[in-house]
């Protein structure tokens, strides 16, 4: 046990104590607190909570490395995962907030007046959130495992117990405020190393402004080596794949239940609008820095590691070679490490930066705590989404509508515990590549929820038959394309499995519209409720007219 271990451990333990303390202080006592935090979260704090909920272990640890390895093609992730907030904030969030329910399946079930649609939506929520959470849990296991040099499995189990405890206890109210704390920790941990790296490499503490020069310089180095330039577009796939992936990530963002439900926790449509703006500002801080990390790391690897004698590599490379994340084999046996003899894992970029820039033990521990915060906050939000889909939408709304508040809360708490443990067990032996599964979760959200929600909010003629057809066709087409592309070698315009959402969403929109038009229109009441979503709370759509609720009376 060395000093580094003790420093990292104490920083992580302090942050864990903070999260648990916040969850206990904000314990949810009523169902509205458990599902939507009592609907009183201020927009700025909700923005931070959305940021922490949104940015996962993969964003924190892996994204910079992905961009480094893919070059320009990796930027589809940056634009896709931020652009989704335009779709969400303009098309869905304020309107869904005005509708005033607890969950996404509940909106679909009530808006389309169909228990079938409700149950399909609840099952989709559970499938999407569950696959996504497996990635978070095994991510947190990797972090704990690597930093403490213990088995990643033990690390996973520690993460599972922690999440099960504070999510079940605090509900949405507790999670919201722990996510605010987790956002602050993760963003500080992400920014400190990149700022110091910028200072050392460019003499300018603003990485966002200064790394452009390095990108240009690396292009020259690449030309000398005779490989394609770092910034050259579409070297890893076709232009259509880039566009399809970007669309899938955007629409998937707007259709992920655990993100949408965060907009239910504010008081009004105006607050939802502002939450979206703050959220993207806070998320943007990390997403604008990831390409800077990528550029700095690649520059250091190209100039300080590649080209040096194999016996004289910088000291920090040794620990990463030991973990297998960095491979330095002198293939042609000339005693010098060439650029093409380096094999780099994408996890290395963020985690190794504090060592490369020689920032000391405290920062290394802080980065570990930041990665844990990213994994735990996303997993917490996902667990609430799973639990509410089961306990609220399936158990309460369909199976046992007469159950008491106490029963419902305990069903919700137990479903969190069981879901977390189940996800934890699968995360011990994660099935295949986690990043792949996460990308599929986005494709599924794009093919199912995005069309159902957009048409539900914006087209009053859409009815229950339409949405059921849309959900099933979207799900079927997305899955079929994923499998055809992944295992059958079938592609259209070079679009591979990760871009499958384009086809799923198109098919789902078409199915919903065609079937809706072929069947009877929804009831007058439902159509008026949909029209009502066009206006702020104070304007009420009723009997084909718009009314101003001037006295602020609660009866409408």
């Amino acid at each position, binding site marked *: 046990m060395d000093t580094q271990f003790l420093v990292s451990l104490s920083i992580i333990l302090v942050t864990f104590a903070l999260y648990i303390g916040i969850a206990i202080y904000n314990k949810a006592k009523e*169902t*509205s607190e458990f599902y939507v935090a009592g*609907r009183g979260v201020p927009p700025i704090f909700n923005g931070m909570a959305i940021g922490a909920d949104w940015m996962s272990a993969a964003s924190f640890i892996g994204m910079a490395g992905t961009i480094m390895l893919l070059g*320009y093609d990796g*930027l*589809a992730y*940056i*634009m896709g995962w*931020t*652009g989704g*907030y*335009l779709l969400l*904030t*303009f*098309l869905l969030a304020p309107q869904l907030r*005005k509708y*005033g329910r607890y969950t996404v399946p509940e909106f679909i079930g009530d808006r389309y007046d169909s228990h079938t649609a409700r149950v399909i939506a609840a099952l989709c929520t559970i499938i999407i959130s569950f696959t996504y959470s497996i990635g978070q849990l095994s991510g947190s296991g990797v972090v704990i495992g690597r930093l403490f040099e213990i088995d990643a499995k033990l690390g996973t189990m520690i993460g599972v117990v922690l999440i099960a405890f504070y999510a079940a206890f605090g509900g949405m109210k507790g999670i919201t405020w722990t996510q605010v704390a987790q956002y602050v920790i993760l963003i500080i941990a992400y920014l400190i190393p990149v700022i110091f790296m910028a200072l050392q490499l460019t003499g300018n503490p603003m990485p966002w402004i200064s*790394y*452009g*020069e*390095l*990108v*240009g310089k690396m292009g020259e180095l690449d030309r000398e080596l005779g490989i394609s330039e770092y*910034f050259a*577009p*579409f070297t890893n796939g076709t*232009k259509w794949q*880039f*566009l399809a992936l*970007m*669309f899938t990530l955007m629409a998937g963002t707007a259709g992920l239940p655990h993100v949408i439900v965060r907009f239910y926790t504010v*008081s*009004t449509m*105006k607050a939802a*609008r502002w939450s*979206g*703006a703050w959220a*993207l500002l806070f998320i*943007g801080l990390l997403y*604008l820095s990831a*390409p800077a990390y990528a550029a700095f790391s690649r520059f250091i690897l190209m100039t300080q590691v590649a080209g040096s004698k194999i016996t004289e590599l910088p000291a920090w490379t040794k620990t990463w070679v030991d973990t297998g994340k960095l491979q330095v084999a002198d293939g042609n046996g000339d005693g010098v490490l060439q650029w093409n003899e380096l094999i780099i894992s994408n996890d290395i970029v963020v985690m190794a930066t504090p060592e490369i820039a020689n920032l000391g033990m405290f920062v290394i521990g802080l980065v570990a705590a930041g990665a844990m915060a990213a994994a735990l906050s996303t997993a917490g939000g996902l667990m609430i989404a799973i639990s509410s889909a089961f306990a609220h939408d399936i158990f309460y709304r369909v199976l046992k509508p007469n159950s008491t508040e106490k029963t419902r809360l305990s069903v919700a708490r137990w479903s969190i515990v069981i879901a977390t443990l189940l996800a934890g067990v699968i995360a011990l032996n994660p099935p295949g590549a986690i990043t792949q599964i996460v990308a599929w979760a986005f494709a599924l959200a794009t093919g199912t929820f995005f069309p159902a929600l957009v048409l539900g909010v914006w087209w009053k003629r859409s009815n229950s038959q339409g949405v059921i057809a849309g959900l099933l066709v979207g799900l079927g087409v997305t899955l079929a394309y994923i499998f055809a592309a992944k295992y059958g070698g079938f592609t259209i315009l070079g679009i591979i499995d990760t871009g499958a959402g384009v086809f799923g969403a198109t098919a789902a929109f078409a199915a919903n519209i065609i079937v809706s038009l072929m069947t009877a229109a929804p009831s007058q009441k439902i159509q008026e409720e949909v029209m009502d979503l*066009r*206006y*702020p*709370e*104070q*304007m*009420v759509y009723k009997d084909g*007219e*718009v*009314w*101003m*609720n*001037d*006295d*602020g*009376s*609660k*009866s*409408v």
Partner: protein
Amino acid sequence: MKKIDKKVADSYFREKTRNMVIYFAIGFLASFGVVFFAEPLSDITINGFPFHYFMGAQGAVLTFIILLFVNAKMGDAIDRKYGIDENKNEQISSGKVLDH
């Protein structure tokens, strides 16, 4: 409750929708538009970056953030213009949700 002239109610919705279409068009050009013309745009250099890389790594994200804040601000301005009072919104909203 008093009735709002249909024309007024429609123009509220039209103004909001028109702004939204403008924001989407700008956001679309900054992301999909630049990707589509990535090769010809790569000859332009901005702050050391080739233009297409700059837009992907920074320009598009900054555009999205600005659009969301403009949307929030303009949304407030439109609400004010039509005499919407946020305090009343809050009051009405807390009574109207389905808390069960």
